[in-house]
């Protein structure tokens, strides 16, 4: 893969969103991925609806949590995602009001991305932002810089937060992943989290996936 890559510089990433007091990170991670995939396949960057997934994905548990792998399947079954504008985010579950007439983007299937971080970087640089999940240890108090917690404190089997991998690179010789979070721009570096790259920090490489258009 290239030494560094950032999909924000190539127009494939929408603005940072805010999930509010709701465990809907899985929906934000998946819509972020589909926004990137749609941009790369269709040439336009759309902001897509997380609320549709919160309300209409019957397999996942809305604000109680969910899995990106289930969300892809739900989107396939529903027929696509509405835009953020048409089906705006509320931060709590409401009855499903999805309309096929308002579909802005669809997907055909989904894939799992290998755990090897070099392959993750190569896939990202070629194919777009990736939905990932990680252990959110220390994110409650993260402000800026490259986070690199001890493995024992941020173990890879306690995954509890889904986010979007948008790029990678080095800062002063320290390799990092650039991660788009969904806690608003008043958290982290303008809403982004920078995590050490190359050692499977916080299990970031364990649940990588993408929709396929």
């Amino acid at each position, binding site marked *: 893969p290239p030494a560094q890559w950032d999909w924000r510089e190539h127009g494939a990433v929408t603005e940072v969103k805010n999930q509010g007091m709701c465990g809907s990170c899985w929906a934000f991670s998946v819509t972020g991925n589909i926004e990137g995939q749609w941009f790369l396949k269709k040439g336009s960057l759309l902001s897509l609806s997380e609320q549709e997934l919160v309300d209409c994905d019957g397999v996942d548990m809305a604000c109680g949590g969910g899995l990106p792998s289930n969300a892809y399947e739900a989107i396939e079954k529903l027929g696509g995602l509405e835009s953020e504008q048409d089906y705006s985010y509320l931060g709590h579950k409401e009855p499903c009001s999805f309309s096929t007439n308002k579909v802005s983007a669809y997907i055909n299937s989904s894939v799992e991305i290998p755990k090897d971080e070099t392959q993750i970087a190569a896939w990202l640089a070629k194919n777009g932002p990736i939905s990932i999940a990680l252990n959110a240890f220390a994110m409650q108090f993260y402000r800026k810089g490259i986070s690199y917690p001890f493995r024992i*404190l941020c173990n890879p089997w306690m995954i509890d937060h889904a986010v979007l991998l948008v790029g990678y690179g080095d800062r002063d010789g320290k390799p990092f992943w650039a991660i788009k979070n969904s806690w608003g721009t008043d958290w982290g570096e303008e809403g982004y989290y920078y995590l050490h790259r190359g050692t499977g920090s916080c299990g970031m490489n364990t649940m990588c996936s993408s929709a396929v258009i």
Partner: protein
Amino acid sequence: VSALPPVRWLQEDPEDIELKTVLRLAEREYNRVSGREDVYRALRLRDLRRQLVSGIRYDFTVFLGRTLCKKEDEEVPDNCSLHSLASLMEIQCRYSMLVFPWVNETKVLDHRCSEEGVSAEPSSDQDVDSVKPEDELLETLSLFKDFVTTYNKKYKDDEEALMRLQIFSQNFKKAKEIQEKDQGTAEYGVTKFSDLTEEEFRTLYLNPLLSSQPSRPMKMALAPTDP
């Protein structure tokens, strides 16, 4: 040797007169030697061990809280009210005492106090005259004030505000610990989530299903092979 449960709250066992006597002695000893203006009161007890030797030896850790009473008051009442921020200014002391109940005598064998707060253990080189916690408290209060303004936090009453201040203070210490252990260049500290307990944060913002449910199987992505 009788080892009692490791943590005991004073109000849990009000009838334990023997224990209360020992704690009152610890309080009195602390107030006698501390050089502080305020009277301190025992709040809770931890790691108590009782051993029958020539008398009865007690080893225990006591957490002392600041009251509104002053030592120079002519008569210090027994029921001095606690300072509203007492829990943020707890002093932790480890005592060894020898009690001779049959002659109504007590001897303090050893005591060491730390002013680092609830989670800190007293260190051997710190004693009751160590650095006052007021500076740390002022720093925390100043940070909390900025935090409330920056993130436009609203609390329903003073009680909730005080509770959030206590959580904020503990979280600030936790962030410092995370900072010390980080191997990268990250900065940790006050964030908009600094007034939430870990449990609240996990419940409100995180996703427990990710580690408790298996992912739906998906086909593997093809690794790029071209340059």
